[in-house]
């Protein structure tokens, strides 16, 4: 057993280093991780970095422009992710991925740009003026901060990975090849349509993994020692993520009548085909420190076998390119659809991830730890949101029979 499996929440499920790794038959994997994902920007059609939502121009009927509501909302998802794996055979591993959103905090960061001079006030509307005006029409001022999704499931994932046997031609090329197929279960929830500061937890709202994912992964170990452990591993992955169309309920304006009255013209329901993704990833694993190898229960009291276990310290660097098809919205209002689709046109995103892995298998502890950070704003994307994610996890491997 070298290194184990990880299905990343916030990468399109491919492209982790060592995507070809499977569990030995009858071996269990248990992985707990904490993820904190921060989102405060998006990229537009021209790859300009912008706030998540456009400025909102507000008008007084016949009174001209009251002002412009600016918002630079920042959403932080805090998640606990449980991964379970089981080696059905030495080449086939089953996976279950259970993401639990501990909470989502949203800071609105509202601002105000005054508009036209209002003769009846003797001044342009200030921000407080505007919200007082709005309140008199039944529109409450949104809170500056909200917490939601407390202990809510995101979409679970079940999957299988099959690793090709070491055929002679693969051995000649020094390659390891595996395919992964994963399905998301609709256990996440969509945001409350009537609220302004909300976030959903489905795969589409998290914008992290598809409803069905297929991956083909290749590893090429280099500088392999006599025990089969490489100093360097190069990995590549291609994948396709399918998103199913989904139905949403349009806002009726019961909470925010001025800002969220849509159902009368959008229709009670509307539908989104999020658009599928094509993903590619390249990774490099560096194993700078193998560490001591001791005869323990993990290695079957065998030092030579202990030396086949993962190095104590490894570093994984990954670049992930995700090509996103445009989202398609269906409603009774083409104008409304366009206002959404223009923010979700065909685009791409670039994710860079660095992860430090610590493995204690060689010294008899069936435990691995990892800490990682993934950035999506180092290289500007197009028509996408740029979440940056910190992750920390523990991983255990056990074989009971």
């Amino acid at each position, binding site marked *: 057993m070298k290194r184990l499996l990880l299905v990343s929440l916030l990468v399109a499920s491919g492209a982790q280093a060592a995507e070809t790794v499977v569990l030995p038959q009858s071996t269990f994997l248990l992985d707990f991780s904490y993820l904190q994902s921060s989102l405060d920007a998006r990229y537009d059609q021209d790859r300009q970095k912008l706030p998540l939502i456009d400025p909102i121009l507000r008008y007084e009927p016949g009174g001209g422009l009251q002002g412009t509501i600016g918002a630079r909302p920042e959403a932080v998802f805090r998640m606990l992710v449980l991964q379970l794996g089981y080696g059905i055979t030495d080449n086939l591993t089953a996976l279950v991925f259970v993401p639990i959103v501990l909470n989502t905090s949203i800071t609105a960061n509202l601002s105000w740009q005054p508009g036209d001079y209002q003769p009846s006030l003797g001044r342009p509307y200030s921000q407080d003026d*505007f919200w007082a005006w709005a309140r008199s*029409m039944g529109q409450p001022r949104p809170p500056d901060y909200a917490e939601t999704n407390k202990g809510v499931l995101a979409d679970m994932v079940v999957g299988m990975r099959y690793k090709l046997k070491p055929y002679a031609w693969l051995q000649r090329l020094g390659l390891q090849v595996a395919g992964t197929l994963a399905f998301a279960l609709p256990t996440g929830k969509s945001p409350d349509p009537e609220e302004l500061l909300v976030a959903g937890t489905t795969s589409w709202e998290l914008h992290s993994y598809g409803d069905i994912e297929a991956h083909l992964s290749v590893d090429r170990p280099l500088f392999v020692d006599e025990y089969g452990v490489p100093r360097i591993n190069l990995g590549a992955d291609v994948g396709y993520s399918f998103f199913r169309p989904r139905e949403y309920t349009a806002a009726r304006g019961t909470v925010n009548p001025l800002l969220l*009255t849509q159902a009368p013209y959008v229709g009670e329901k509307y539908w989104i085909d999020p*658009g599928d993704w094509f993903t590619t990833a390249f990774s490099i694993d560096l194993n700078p420190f193998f560490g001591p190898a001791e005869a323990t229960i993990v290695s079957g009291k065998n030092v030579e076998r202990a030396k086949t276990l993962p190095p104590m310290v490894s570093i994984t660097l990954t670049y992930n390119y995700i090509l996103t098809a*445009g989202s*398609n919205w*269906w409603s*009774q209002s083409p104008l409304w659809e366009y206002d959404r689709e223009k923010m979700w*046109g065909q685009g791409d995103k670039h994710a860079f991830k660095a992860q430090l892995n610590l493995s204690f298998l060689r010294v008899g502890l069936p435990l691995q730890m990892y800490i990682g950070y993934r950035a999506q704003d180092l290289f500007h994307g197009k028509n996408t949101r740029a979440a940056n994610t910190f992750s920390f996890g523990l991983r255990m491997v056990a074989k009971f029979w």
Partner: protein
Amino acid sequence: MRPSTLVCSATLATAVTLTLTSCGPPVAPPTRELVTLNGDAYSRGLQHGQQLSAKIKGFYTTLLTASLFPYLGREQPDIATLLTEYGNDRYKNGRFAYELLLDSAKSLERSIPLSAREEMRGIADGSGLTYDEVLILNTFVDSTLAVRGIALAIRLSRAPVLERVEVVEAGSDGADNDGDGMTDEAGEGVLDPYNPTRGATFVELPASFTLKLRVRDSDGVDPALVRLQLGAEPLEATKTELAADLLEVSANVTAPAASTLLVMLGAGDKKVLPNPPPDHASFMRDTELLFTTRGAGLTADQVSWPVLSDGRTRPPSIALSLQGPATAGGAPLIAQHFALLDANTSYKHTAVFVHEPDKGRPFAYVGWAGVAWGFAGMNASGVGYACNSSDTLDNSVVGAVFDQVADLSKAKLVAKGTPIGFAMRRVLETATDAAQAATITRGFEHAYGWSCLLGDAAGGQRAVEVDSDVFKEGSMGFYEYGTAERLSSNGDGDLVIASDYTKNVNDIVRLTVAGQKIVPQREWAGTFFRSRRAASHLLRDVKAAYGQLDRASVQAIISNPEVVDMSDSMNAVVLDLKNRKLWSAHGQVPATKGPFIETEVPAP
């Protein structure tokens, strides 16, 4: 929905090296449509409703449900204290504005021609809105303007009033400053009471003079809320409280000889009102005083109002009628830039409607989804019109209150008469020249005040002004003029209007009812001074190109930022009456941010 997306997805599925060029950004749906309607009235309405169903629902929801209704709803508590009928259950739970406008719509419906009602039924059936909703959508402009006018007049009655204007040196400057034929007579240089006029307040003043303005408010005028400007620049002023309710504002004014100068006064009182929010003092309408200095050589009525670029004022709707000596080749043109209520939504729902009725001549107008009329249009006979609102208290809602004044517990704010749009629809359907169009307009009882230009392919041109003639003053609420009167013309080929009355300047008798002053338009309407400046600007532009004006130059004139409301511009139109071509810019704000696009009205 974008059809290309699925194609993109399919491409993604099959090609690793896909090219992205086929998957471009979503294409914006048009914000302006060209809708051709055939058949009888109901059929045309049905086609309209079916073709623009989504936009009609969107327009109704975003403009009325989510904007105008809650806005009007804020007035319910105040109105219900006087008119207790509005405290009834029917008007509660957020339904006040809808029911208020529905009451007026039902009343106005009685004066809407039958064919237009059939057309609205077609729109309702085609769009999925109820007939009542379509009726409100087609009548709310007149009824809302009437209610808004009353609310504004009430609000201004609580605000400071400029009651006296004095130019100290005018009594001894050796010039006739007030145009009465006398020089330095007793009281020259003093206007007490002050009443706004369409022309200059004083003329031929010294290049440097002292201006004293007295402003009164029963709650006291707050000196900190007094603003005095010379043109766009603040003017240093001394504020002296002569009494608890009287403030005198004094300033030394200096201007070049033979020049025109504009002094603007704004003031608020000392009482802060919490309703309707936000907290605010009561502010008088910004009042503008027009002067000339020695050597200008103009009478008060000849002075042209200058441009005011202080960032606080927005131009009103404007319109031009040009023909004969004014235009290249004598081509008859009507042009309009209409501004009233965009609210970040009207521009998304615009359309040019071309009607080809089974009986009668084709016609076209520039309008909005779900609305059976427009503020400008023309027919196959080459008769065209452009109408601007003209705020007046001589409106049908005021009339209804007077009719019910004996028992206010049952009184309601209900408009009656014919909305201007439907009156102009009748002009399009039946008029063969401008004179006949004027006659048709005269035949309606009007729900609100409007100023319109009418023209025809032969060069006929008339300006008509309407109101509701609440006190039956003998005019039937109809006032007509042409170029010969030189009320708003450079010569024999041009008529220029904004959003005020040019002939009907004493639109209503001055009286006080239950402490509420009823006064003519020029004394309260927010568009009055703005109209004076805009009309003057247009007259200068027209004069500069007199005889050479054509479609392109007229489009440029009405696109000039000096006459464009950047927030509430709704449509800009040029009608080439002889060639039956309608050029319209709309679908963006301001309307003239986009191109003028040609629509030809089918031949009869």
